[in-house]
């Protein structure tokens, strides 16, 4: 079960700058730490986060092993049209989560 918390306005004026915030539950295991048995715990991180507005990419971010567990991303976008904002996280071990919110631009 993957947990995501998104904070995005439900409505915006056309041309308004809005803040989008996304928080996801993920261990972000670096791949450098030995476990209790002395062996290195394999790397398990989110590699990429993308956000798209009605299918068009508006934000992309590459993650590194230095980024904390349960990463929080906040960024700004210009409200262009009503529709769907999608957030997508992909990473090691086939990790892929997508979450979207609806926005009404008047």
């Amino acid at each position, binding site marked *: 079960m993957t*947990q*995501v918390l*998104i*904070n995005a306005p439900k409505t915006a004026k056309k041309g308004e700058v809005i803040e989008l*915030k996304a*928080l996801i539950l993920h261990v972000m295991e670096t791949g450098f730490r030995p476990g209790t048995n002395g062996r290195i715990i394999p790397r398990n991180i989110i590699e990429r986060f993308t956000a798209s507005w009605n299918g068009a990419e508006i934000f992309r971010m590459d993650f590194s092993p230095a980024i904390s567990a*349960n990463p*929080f991303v906040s960024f700004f976008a210009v409200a262009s049209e009503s529709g769907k904002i999608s957030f997508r996280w992909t990473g090691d071990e086939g990790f892929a989560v997508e979450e979207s919110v609806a926005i009404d631009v008047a």
Partner: protein
Amino acid sequence: MKASPSKSPSPLTLRDLLGRRAALVLLPAVFAASFAMAQAGADKRRSGYQDMGAALQKMQDDDTTNPGMLFVQLGQQLWAKPAGANNKACADCHSVGDMKGVAVRYPAMPRDGDKPIDLESRIRLCRTVNQQAEPLAPESRELLSLAAFVANQSRGLPIAPPADPRLAPFREQGAAIYQRRQGQLNLSCAICHDDNAGKKLAGVTIPQAHPTGYPLYRLEWQALGSLKRRLRNCLIGIRAEAYPSDAVEYVALEIYLMDRARGMVFEAPGVRP
């Protein structure tokens, strides 16, 4: 209202009477409020929340930036998920509304037990006895999530330990541990959290150790953790040998600390640095 000089003394009108009655009703309320304010002024207790920076306080206050809410959300799903031989979920017996006020009165004595248990142990007990499911490991993500979900229902309520006489010896034991010097650094809990609270330890403000937000998300842990984990952390910090995970000493300390924080506002899931 202005009384004309020709018509004095003016007769009492209904409006005057109502006004006086309102004043009489209000007077005790005003006294009560000022008394409460004086009490609050006398109360020097501070939650760790008040000692954090503004950014962290904002992080805790906003449910979409508080990472603890991820676990609350997970706990909500586990709450409704059937488990064990009885194939029952928490939600089959309990309503979420009934969980309001539970976390603020734990640790408590189980009905037919002689040892007090904290909220996490209560959930583990319910899982093995009532659900007939495999026990949840201590500090596991599932257990902490369920505890966070239950604790979140009590957010905003005052901490209210039960008046159970069976808890008294354990509270005393907890108080004794709190005062006792231990570990290679030969420190007691009280030396830092009573005598030196509010001062700095390696750049961090020493809190007064009121367990107002457990289970809480510590940025240092990058995870949710229980009060027991916090106590264990402190014991290791003073180079003392930590108690085994099921030791009654932890619960005794928890009972004492919750009693010490009686009346303070519960904030679970808290965020701490």
